[in-house]
């Protein structure tokens, strides 16, 4: 399998403190890798390490199959990036900023600027200065700059910051298009679980500078199976009935009234019928699924912002 990025025990220490600690991550070619973690977890630092803005204290990075050295720069022509907040030359117009970017990247296409501004939903702003833009517009312009040269690998740090719901939706669609049509590999960070959940193929969860989980979206979904949640006033008797009459061992008593039953082979109707026959009062019984949000909140204490 081809990897765009592989890191081994990547560590960055600032003033004796490990900001990134022993991170071993793998980003496969052609996937969208969602980087999930609370603010200050080390997401941006890892992105800076990948683009050589900062140098690792320990460990190594392999990017496009080549080990990254402190003076590597050629590989950057294959990367588009937006790290931390959108930065521009404030005295140059939006168009001049993009023109300058293309000139430095060695990319020459007259039509590209108009196309890319259309793509990110910025119209009639070419001759305006970025300092007059709202945060959302700056964010869009920064994404435009990152994708204008159609790089193979796109690094986007919190790209939906400051966007309105319609803008978020459009941006999500854009990322999918770039991934599917152009085969771009994307590394997208966010502290918003719902956002990552909708687009990522692989998720890396980072907390306190450590990568605490790296797994495919599919395997995470498979792990979070369905369960039946039973609310009853007679929780002790219900538990006994489940065990003795129905032979279910895989259940969990959540609180005084709630029981979660994880036995997928026993139909819900059979459970309710047996409980009623045993004269147990059922307040409610329903099928549920652990949301990814619950799953990740367990993993990290995240800001539970839902877009």
């Amino acid at each position, binding site marked *: 399998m081809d990897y765009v990025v592989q890191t081994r025990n990547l560590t960055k220490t600032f003033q004796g403190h490990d900001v990134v600690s022993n991170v071993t991550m793998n980003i496969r070619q052609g996937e969208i890798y969602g980087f999930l973690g609370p603010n200050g977890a080390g997401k941006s630092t890892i992105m800076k390490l990948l*683009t050589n803005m900062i140098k690792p204290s320990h460990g190594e990075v392999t990017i496009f199959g080549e080990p990254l050295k402190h*003076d590597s*720069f050629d*590989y*950057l022509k294959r990367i588009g990036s937006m790290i931390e907040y959108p*930065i521009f030359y404030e005295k140059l117009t939006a168009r001049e900023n993009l023109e*300058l970017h293309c000139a430095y*990247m060695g990319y020459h296409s007259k039509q590209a600027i108009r196309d890319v501004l259309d793509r990110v939903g910025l119209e009639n702003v070419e001759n305006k200065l970025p300092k007059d833009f709202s945060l959302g517009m700056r964010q869009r312009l920064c994404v435009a700059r990152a994708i204008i040269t159609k790089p193979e690998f796109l690094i986007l740090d919190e790209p939906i910051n400051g966007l309105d719901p319609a803008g978020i939706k459009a941006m999500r669609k854009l990322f999918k298009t770039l991934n599917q049509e152009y085969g771009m590999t994307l590394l997208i960070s966010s502290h918003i679980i719902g956002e990552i959940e909708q687009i990522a193929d692989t998720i890396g969860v980072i907390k306190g500078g450590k990568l605490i989980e790296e797994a495919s979206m599919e395997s995470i979904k498979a792990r979070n199976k369905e369960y039946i949640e039973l609310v009853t006033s007679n929780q002790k008797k219900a538990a006994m009935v489940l065990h003795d009459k129905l032979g279910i061992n895989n259940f969990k008593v959540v609180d005084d009234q709630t029981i979660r039953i994880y036995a997928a082979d026993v139909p819900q109707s059979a459970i309710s019928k047996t409980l009623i026959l045993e004269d147990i009062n059922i307040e409610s019984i329903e099928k549920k699924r652990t949301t990814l949000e619950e799953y990740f909140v367990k993993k990290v204490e995240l800001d539970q912002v839902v877009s």
Partner: protein
Amino acid sequence: MFHLIRLESKKFKLGWFVKGTILANIIILSILCIIPVVEKSEGTEMLKDVTGVFTISGAGVRGVFIVFAAVLISKMIIQEFRNRTMFIMFSYPINRKKILSAKLILIVLMTFIAMTISHIVVIFSFIGLNQIFHFTSAMSLTSSDVLAEIIKIIMFSLTTAVAALVPLYFGMRNYSTPATIISSLLIVSVTCQSMGPNFSLAGIIYIPLALAIIALGIVVLAIRKIDRIDLN
């Protein structure tokens, strides 16, 4: 490299530098015209011959452009770090050493050209105006004098333009614009001082020459270090 230098000049829109140069020339020339008038009333005459004019105008021109160079260093290097636009620059597939070199070459070139042209313009304007308004005793120049003066001007301008990079060291320590400008004033004080008709630091080429050598050392260190800088 030429391409990078061109992009740098495009990026920073250097029209202000040209305007500033013209304004500086007018001011230096005005001061030069006032000095003999004031001196006449005091009884000491410094601007009585071409050498005097050369020294005083040279001190003025070089002083101004050492500070201009510091402003360029600040705008093109220090501010790029402070405003974090260096993030953009270092995300390009271009050797960081080349990026920094292009900036420094542009700064030296602009400073050198502005210094040389300004000095020539100021001297010849003064001599011309003196023939009309007689600020001081008449001055005559032969063509060999002119050639010798111009070669001298170029020598001084070149060494001073390189010496004007010394503030880079102070500026880069904390990416500080004030440190850059203030250190340039120190360079001005040692290279452009004139203490009366008989002694003037401004006439000694070894001072800017020594500073230019120090500046080259600073530049070499900065370029060697640039690959290891963490942009955080």
